[in-house]
């Protein structure tokens, strides 16, 4: 075998290794989901969704955790959406190339890399203790809002950046002020992109466990929250609690709850991708 053949052979070998590695990821994803479906699908029925948690595995349901997750999701959206989008607009349209902008950019990039459990410690001290909100839905939502803020800001900026300069110029030429241009032209044009980012950020929030445990969310709550000041549990914490128990029945419960949690996550991701595709086509 001469050198050229050897190199061609190596090239082919690497190609198959590449296909193999790519497939490992996808195959594992399939095994994960398949295994969890086998473990848990038979456990899912209407009672499982509407039952309160119980000491007996077969009587336990996810009602309180599901309601807790919905509360958290709603409040987090209300808090993080306006603040994140406003900050994104400021960075992209107002604070270009000044010192503050540089500082904000480094800061946001750093915040995006802070482990989620550290946000939990921040929330515990500031929201739970100092603001005296206790281990409430509101304290949990505020904590998760800070956690997803960098993601919302970055995706808002990306979406606004993609709006063609010609649209802004046209608006200014017609005598519109800066804010009129943003409100009537830039935001409608970048809405799909912003929405994609916000939904992706929220799908991350719905799966977060650690910061809420630190804030003091409970594994066992007898009732679903009725107001933002109530105690709560969420789906991932309920799953964590069931995994930590030795009885086989709870493992089955955990798998069933995981199916529902993954369902929620994937649906949110799907909606985000749909918006992204729809919005990308608009500028092509």
């Amino acid at each position, binding site marked *: 075998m001469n050198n050229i053949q050897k*190199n061609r052979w190596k*090239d082919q070998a*690497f*190609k198959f*290794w*590449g296909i193999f*590695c*790519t497939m*490992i*990821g*996808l195959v*594992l994803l399939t095994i*994960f989901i398949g*295994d969890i479906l086998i473990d848990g699908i038979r456990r899912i029925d209407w009672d499982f969704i509407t039952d309160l948690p119980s000491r007996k595995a077969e009587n336990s349901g996810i009602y309180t955790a599901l309601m807790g997750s919905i509360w958290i999701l709603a409040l987090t959206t209300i808090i993080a959406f306006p*603040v994140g989008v*406003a*900050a994104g*607009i*400021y*960075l992209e349209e*107002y604070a270009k190339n000044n010192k503050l902008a540089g500082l*904000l950019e480094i800061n946001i*990039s*750093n*915040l995006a*890399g*802070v*482990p*989620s*459990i*550290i*946000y939990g*410690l*921040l929330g*515990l*001290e500031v929201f739970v*203790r100092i603001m005296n909100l206790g281990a409430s839905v509101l304290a949990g939502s505020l904590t998760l809002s*800070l956690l997803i*803020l*960098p993601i919302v800001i970055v995706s808002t900026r990306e979406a606004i950046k993609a709006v063609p300069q010609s649209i802004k110029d046209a608006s200014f030429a017609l005598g519109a*002020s*800066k*804010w009129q241009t943003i409100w009537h032209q830039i935001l409608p044009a970048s809405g799909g992109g912003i929405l994609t980012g916000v939904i992706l950020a929220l799908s991350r929030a719905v*799966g*977060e*466990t*650690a910061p809420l*445990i*630190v804030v003091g969310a409970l*594994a066992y709550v007898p009732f679903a929250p009725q107001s933002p000041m109530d105690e709560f549990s969420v789906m*991932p914490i309920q*799953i*964590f609690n069931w*995994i*930590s128990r030795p009885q086989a029945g709870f*493992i089955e419960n955990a*798998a069933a709850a*995981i199916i529902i949690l*993954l369902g929620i*996550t994937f649906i949110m991701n799907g909606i985000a991708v749909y918006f992204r595709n729809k919005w990308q086509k608009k500028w092509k």
Partner: protein
Amino acid sequence: MRKIKELIIEKTLMTSALITIAVTLGIILVLSIEAIQFFSEVSIFDFLTDTQWTPLFTEKHFGILPLLSGTLLTSFIAISVALPIGLTISIYLSEYAPKAFRKAVKPLLELLASIPTVVYGFFALVVVTPFLQGFFPDLAGFNSLSAGIVMGIMIIPYISSISEDALHAVPASLREASYGMGATKLQTAFKVIVPAASSGIIVSIILAISRAIGETMIVAIAAGQQPRLTLDPTVPVETITAYIVQVSLGDVQHGSLEYRTIFAAGITLFTFTFLLNTLSYRIRKKYQEKYE
């Protein structure tokens, strides 16, 4: 009138942006204040050198080393899994794969990163550990090996996606010049493209390490809650993050020394990830200038 309205709007938007600064300051202040109170009771020398971590026992030791070794061990295993696979995937997708395949596979791989980590924890404990016990009968029910491997799978997309973007951004002219000299795709990839994209690849690896160090639920579920100074991947360990979860689940009095341990552990974790994130930001900025 219009000017005033515009000004008010600008200031409101600016306030929103400044919240992010407040968050950073808040994190640093909260961690520092609690940690300073902690270190007024426990000497910083003991914290850094004692080889035992037993704040919840009657005989208390406050050495961070066992938690740190648990964190670094699981992260090391995760990176050993994710780095070769993630890098190969990025090179394959960028240099070999047909366009349509690349477009279809990338979002699927990114789905791996969107799965909640508690789900990975379930998988490590219920599937991977029993599977590995078939090969290593001595493997404990909680161990850093399964937790590390599963965490590695989770961070594959962090490495593959960012590296692939970097490889893809290398100008086609470099590729064509290399092919023109008679190089194969493999030679071009490793001798031309990877070196040209090296800063982007390094950024992806640093981010993945930072993600692994801060990961909580997988290790809290599958690696155990026994802080010990060891490099043995088959025994239970405890990471910094898992310890914070353990204390949070218990009933620890606010203001007690036990309560402050989680902030001392937290500031250690924050310092590590902060250094890694700053490093990756610096590299990314430098690299952007190179191609623009």
